[in-house]
């Protein structure tokens, strides 16, 4: 057995542990009684049809939406597990800026489109105290290389980038502070297939290399098959099935999951 495999088998305490999470919009159910845990370095996929509550769940987890009930315990670097709902707003914002990342489906929500690529990546380091322009720029370029963006584009605005480049820039902008947990909502949505494949490859490489835990929401079973260690299937706000990705996809138990998998395989 490789050391990697051994490491995978040794249970680590969860990085994030969610229990009984509920959120509704007036009478409309967003998500309902969601419980799960994710360990450091693990990639969790969330799939489900449109309106099943995936984005709602992600927004609650990442502190952008206040849930109606439930707890979200996060293993903070210096304090150990803390219910993030009890953190003060500045503490939560700081956590989101340093130890977390959020990659949005729409780059407009995750990038400053009128700030250069370098400036986009430099923002987080500057927010946590970087004061040396040369170092900030060097680090930004290091990340541009990691996400395969030509260094000649360092000072260009992402407005002039292709969709795939914008997503890669979003990833660099988030990963530069080495977050331990990254939330992604449909990061490959709206990209054409070959661009998607390249982005997924890149993501997989970075996630493995840096040992980042990722919660990734997607419509696309191919995405979870490639990236996710574990999978959660949602329907009408509830988690109806979860387990190791291959197990869930190859041997789905819930009729809805079976439908989901078969409809994909038929294509």
């Amino acid at each position, binding site marked *: 057995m490789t050391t990697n495999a051994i490491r995978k088998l040794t249970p680590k305490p969860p990085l994030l542990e969610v229990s009984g999470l509920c959120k509704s919009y007036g009478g409309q159910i967003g998500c309902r009684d969601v419980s799960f845990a994710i360990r450091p370095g693990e990639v969790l996929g969330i799939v489900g049809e449109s309106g099943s509550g995936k984005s709602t769940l992600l927004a609650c987890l990442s502190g952008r939406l206040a849930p109606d009930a439930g707890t979200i315990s996060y293993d903070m670097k210096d304090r150990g597990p803390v219910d993030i709902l009890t953190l003060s*707003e*500045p503490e939560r*914002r*700081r956590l989101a*800026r340093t130890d977390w990342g959020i990659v949005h489906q729409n780059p407009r929500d995750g990038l*400053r489109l009128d*700030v*250069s690529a*370098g*400036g986009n990546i*430099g*923002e*987080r380091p*500057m*927010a*946590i105290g970087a*004061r*040396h*322009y*040369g170092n*900030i*720029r060097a680090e930004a370029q290091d990340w541009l290389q990691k996400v395969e963006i030509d260094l000649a584009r*360092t*000072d260009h605005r992402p407005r002039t980038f292709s969709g795939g480049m914008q997503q890669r820039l979003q990833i660099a902008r988030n990963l530069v502070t080495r977050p331990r947990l990254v939330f992604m909502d449909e990061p490959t949505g709206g990209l054409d297939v070959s661009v998607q494949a390249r982005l997924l490859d890149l993501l997989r490489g970075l996630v493995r290399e840096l040992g980042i835990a990722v919660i990734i929401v997607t419509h696309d079973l191919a995405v979870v098959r490639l990236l996710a260690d574990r999978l959660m299937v949602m329907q009408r706000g509830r988690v109806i099935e979860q387990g190791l990705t291959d197990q869930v996809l190859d041997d789905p138990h819930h009729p809805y999951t079976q439908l989901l998998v078969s409809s994909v395989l038929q294509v």
Partner: protein
Amino acid sequence: MSAGTTTIHSDTGYNFAYLDEQTKRMIRRSLLKALSIPGYQVPFGGREMPLAYGWGTGGIQVTASVIGPDDRLKVIDQGADDTTNAVSIRRFFQTVTDVTVTESTEDATIIQTRHRIPEIPLKEGQVLVYQVPQPEPLQKIEPRETETRKMHAYAEYGAMRVTLYEDVAHFGRIAKTYDYPAVINGRHLMSPSPIPKFDNPKMEMNPAIQLFGAGREKRIYAVPPYTSVRSLDFDDHPFEVQTWKGCCALCGSTVSYLDEVITDDKGSRMFVCSDTDFCNTRQAKAAAQPKTAGEQS
């Protein structure tokens, strides 16, 4: 500066300094709050003034709230006492207060300013009132006010540095030359109003009281005497003020902020002090002194 009196100004029928006492008290309360939280923007119930926004209504309301019959008022615009804006504001206060007006920085107890801080160092007891068109330094990077308020509350100023980063990336240096943001008392990021960055160091540890009024946005903020004012910069691109190769063509000063003026229709130009009181005083002193060979200024 003294508490306003309740006397009705005899000639005009207006209350002393135009604003009613209630309003002045309200503004003074905002000023006290602003002084106790240096650099923090205090909202205030700004009044309509008999001048359009953009003509210094914020500064005028601040001045009107702190001025007393014994004050000596100086008003400058671009460093000069004789520009339209300065003249009309000075006239306004002459009409509604009868206070003594002066062009001398040293003699003034209150100086209302747009675009400059006088060259002659201010003293304890003096009040400098800035006219502010746009009080929010974060506005360019974050248009939502709900968000900028949080950024100030939690001292999240990283995004502001992005603007400096962009300057260095595109121009090789921090290109901002006026309204250069500074952190006040190690805490709040503040827009110093459109003064040249040349004047930023003068704000630091200044013995005078510095008050800022934004009329349209209805915000007041302040830098109390002897407060640290740190202009944002990078370790490897430190804050620097403008410098000029020559000296003032009129008074020979090498230490003041110089404006370039065109002197004829052939495009001849020269550099002169923007602070007219400073320049005139130096010229008068030089004229009064017997010329000695080799003496420069």
